[in-house]
């Protein structure tokens, strides 16, 4: 494997007052025990845009993504330092209500993980736990979120069927519907198409393009074409550092860093 100088970076400064920033991180370090997986990543994410995080396996892009809504908190021995600024609050602080924060920063995982409940209950369950009891409101949320996720027409007659009977692509879209039912500001997606077939992936991408109007999306993907097709910004991760961050078209046509160029052109490693 070629070695690249990790000091050779280009990080586009988005927080310049011209754009609305939904979320930004300042010097994020993530370590498991004595092993540091992320060595200080500072990125800002523009509102209502799709940002793709790309990089080889082990580059730390998923770890970084999971630290944004503090999913790494649940893994014992994991330490995340640095600031994650959301609406002027450092959500990585000790006094932050993590559960409340996760309502605003939703997440969809690599493996579709619907609950062993009906399609309807999958979407309404967390809402009910958070205090929404009105059946009319719940019905409406189920319909709108399933429509937004592009699943409504396929399941509208089976809403009370078990979600575990859905296909992989359908289950993943249900997970998206479930996540947006919380009305989050930001949607984190961790390789959401990794286990889907090409047709389901295409549908998923269409869904994401439509969701962009209402949500800020940060997506980890292994699929270069996917990043190119749907994202507005792309961050390239390498060995725990974000080496390049720029508009997607620039990353894919005129990258400024050798490592990025090698990676997007397939000459990496």
């Amino acid at each position, binding site marked *: 494997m070629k070695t690249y100088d990790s000091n050779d970076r280009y990080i586009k400064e988005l927080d310049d007052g011209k754009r609305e920033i939904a979320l930004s991180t300042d010097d994020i370090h993530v370590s498991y025990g004595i092993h540091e997986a992320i060595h200080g990543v500072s990125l800002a994410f523009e509102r209502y845009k799709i940002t793709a995080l790309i990089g080889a396996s082990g580059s730390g892009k998923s770890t970084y993504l999971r630290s944004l*809504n503090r*999913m790494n908190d*649940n893994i*014992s021995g994991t330490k995340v330092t640095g600031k994650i600024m959301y609406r002027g609050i450092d959500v990585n602080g000790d006094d932050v209500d993590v*559960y*409340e*924060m*996760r*309502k605003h920063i*939703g*997440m*969809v*995982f690599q*493996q579709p*993980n*619907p*609950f*062993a*409940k009906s399609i309807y209950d999958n979407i309404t*369950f*967390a809402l009910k*736990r*958070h205090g929404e009891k009105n059946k009319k409101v719940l019905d409406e949320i189920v319909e709108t979120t399933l429509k937004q996720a592009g699943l409504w027409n396929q399941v509208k007659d089976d809403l009370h*069927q*078990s*979600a*575990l*009977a859905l296909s992989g692509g359908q289950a993943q879209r249900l*997970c998206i519907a*479930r*996540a947006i039912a*919380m009305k989050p500001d930001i949607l984190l997606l961790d390789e959401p198409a990794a286990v889907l077939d090409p047709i389901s992936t295409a549908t998923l991408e269409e869904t994401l393009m439509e969701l962009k109007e209402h949500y800020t999306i940060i997506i980890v993907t292994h699929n270069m074409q996917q990043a190119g097709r749907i994202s507005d910004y792309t961050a390239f991760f390498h060995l725990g550092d974000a080496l390049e961050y720029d508009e997607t078209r620039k990353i894919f046509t005129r990258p400024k860093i050798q490592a990025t160029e090698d990676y997007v052109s397939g000459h990496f490693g």
Partner: protein
Amino acid sequence: MTPRKWDKVATVVLYMISIFIIFVLAFLLLYILITGLPHVSWHFITGKSSSFQAGGGIGVQLFNSIYLLVLAMIISVPLSLGAGIWLSEYAPKNWVTSLIRNAIEILSSLPSVVVGLFGFLVFSIQMNFGFSILSGALALTVFNLPLLTRKVEDSLQAIHYTQREAGYALGLSRWETVIHVVVPAALPGIITGMILGMGRIFGEAAALIYTAGQSSPPLDFSNWNPLYIASPLNPMRSAETLAVHIWKINSEGIIPDATQVSAASSAVLVLFVLLLNFLARYVGNRLYAHLTGVKERN
């Protein structure tokens, strides 16, 4: 010999071993049922047992077995759920937890007669419960708790980690996620384990001989006040269960029809345990199908 031939030989040998095991089981089951069932009648199942004359029944013993089973499950189900949930979802990975896990492992392999003597010393003597249903139920709890806990923990562990992450990502706390996501998904396994545990309790004799006792006082089946001394529900009375009854008439029975009563009691006991096993499978499959939307599972 060629690998192909070896495979054939192995297949034949494995088949023969399986057939042998099935044969032994079928023989045992059929023997018990064929010798016992002819003597089973409504009068036998509901009648009073007799001490000296022929024609006694097992009504009280059957009632005692069921009552003890219910009491023991009332005590052990919540305890095993709590312990299993803690071990699976909350316990830190350190030496204390692994010590507890090892202790449970050892406890679950304890011979039931040892559990019975332990129950006798602790519940009957030390705590002064005497030969009573309460002592028996507590001894059965000691006997059953390790296996139930283990089953609960295993069922919860079988639920994929991504299910928990799904809960957390929706802003649910760990407790909410465990109670409303993980436990419901693990319910088929938990219920199956509980019912199988019931079968084990129902057939248990050794743990009860010195705790619930080997006889029952005269019972008044018209008074169900648990505080009344002759009430069938009085937890402080001694109670001979069906399994203990079988052991007793075989070891010191002086009724002339001891062989028949013993055979018939065994048949009833085996039928009950079989019933519980089928129930476990049925309920487990139904719950699984209900939760997953899969219509059938073989």
